[in-house]
């Protein structure tokens, strides 16, 4: 039931803005969490997002550049829990590129590696992101 709601919302979004909500997922090098990242990416795609996945461990500056070139609505910084003040830093990098309208969503929560835990968490995260980008 919940899935259908996400899809309805992204559908309405696409009709209003002319394309699906587009999200960039990025993780730091030490996360090395490719598998979890794939599960999260799939959940976003199922919800009706177009999903870009950044190579892991890129400098924030490069992630910002990818966000700008792909013209995403939002950037999800995942598994960055050891980084302080990352949101402020990243937002200022986006501003330098003239992209102050791109939403930044940081996942600070410690991720559970158990599948079920991750899936619940992911649904909540999709929900949060969708609201932030205006869907």
């Amino acid at each position: 039931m919940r899935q259908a709601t996400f899809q309805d919302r992204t559908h309405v979004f696409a009709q209003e803005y002319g394309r699906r909500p587009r999200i960039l997922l990025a993780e730091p090098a030490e996360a090395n969490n490719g598998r979890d990242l794939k599960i999260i990416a799939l959940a976003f795609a199922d919800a009706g997002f177009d999903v870009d996945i950044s190579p892991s461990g890129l400098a924030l500056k490069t992630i910002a550049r990818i966000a700008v070139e792909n013209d995403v609505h939002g950037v999800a910084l995942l598994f960055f829990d050891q980084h302080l003040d990352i949101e402020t830093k990243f937002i200022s990098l986006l501003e330098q590129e003239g992209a102050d309208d791109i939403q930044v969503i940081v996942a600070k929560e410690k991720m559970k590696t158990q599948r079920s835990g991750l899936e619940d968490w992911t649904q909540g995260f999709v929900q949060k992101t969708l609201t932030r980008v205006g869907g």
Partner: protein
Amino acid sequence: MMQLPDSDYYIQGILDKNRRILSQTITLIESSLKIHKTLAKQVLDKLMPHTGNSIRIGITGVPGAGKSTFIENLGLILAEQGHQVAVMAVDPSSRKMGGSIMGDKTRMEKLAFHKNTFIRPSPSGNTLGGVAAKTRETMLACEAAGFDVILVETVGVGQSEISVAFMVDCFLALMISGAGDELQGIKRGVLEVADAIVVNKADGKNIDLAIKAKLELEMAMNMIMPASPVWHTPVLTCSSVTPKGTWGVWETILEHQKKMKQTGDFELRRQQQALDWMWNLVDQGLKSRFKENENISKLIPLLAEKVRSEQISPSSAADKMLALL
């Protein structure tokens, strides 16, 4: 909904080589909203005098042929030489119900932050006329922003690969060794329109196999009529993991371009592509107008039923509908 900037914002931004505005213009081009499409057309019309100064290269290949690594290797050589390289990647990983997952930059990470590059993956989505329709216009926007090498990546699945061949100056088909089976999977149509065939991954233990594949492909190519009388499609080998391993391919692209320019075929091909593109759009427009016509859409189920039950021939049913246009 946000206030839309006027066309000058986009035009000036592109001519100023503003990365952010180029990116926003591509979004406008790809949009499904009528108001965006109208604006995108105005912008492109004004940009036309600034387009064309590039070499447009299309790259196709079966999944696993190493297209992204190839593009990263070639793109880096060119960016290092001072070329401005734009990469358009048409991503096929679109899913029926949901959105799509694009991982191209995952596979081109060095290229992604070089100062002379711009990479834009596009979801193949369910846009009318396929994403290729938008790719052509995106290419023009990049040219106006000063990019002089345009690389269009497409996957050897479905129709998009052939349509890409008809919007570029040089079309490369990437292959891998171990041919035989793979060769059967390649559509003959792709070999017919390719300007060069490249056997990728000719490195390490794979070199002998790659050379064998090259010979097999050369034999296969001998049975295909060359598309141009002045260019016989060569089969090359390359390695995308050795530095400058794709240099030979670039030399072939330049040689092809030189020959085509000498004979005038370069310009002719571009002109023909632009005309084909125009007719393509006319066809699409006619079809959608036809279906939007109320009288016709009422008639369609009736006539369809008559055709099914063989009360009327398909051709006279078509005549009846067309007569209403």
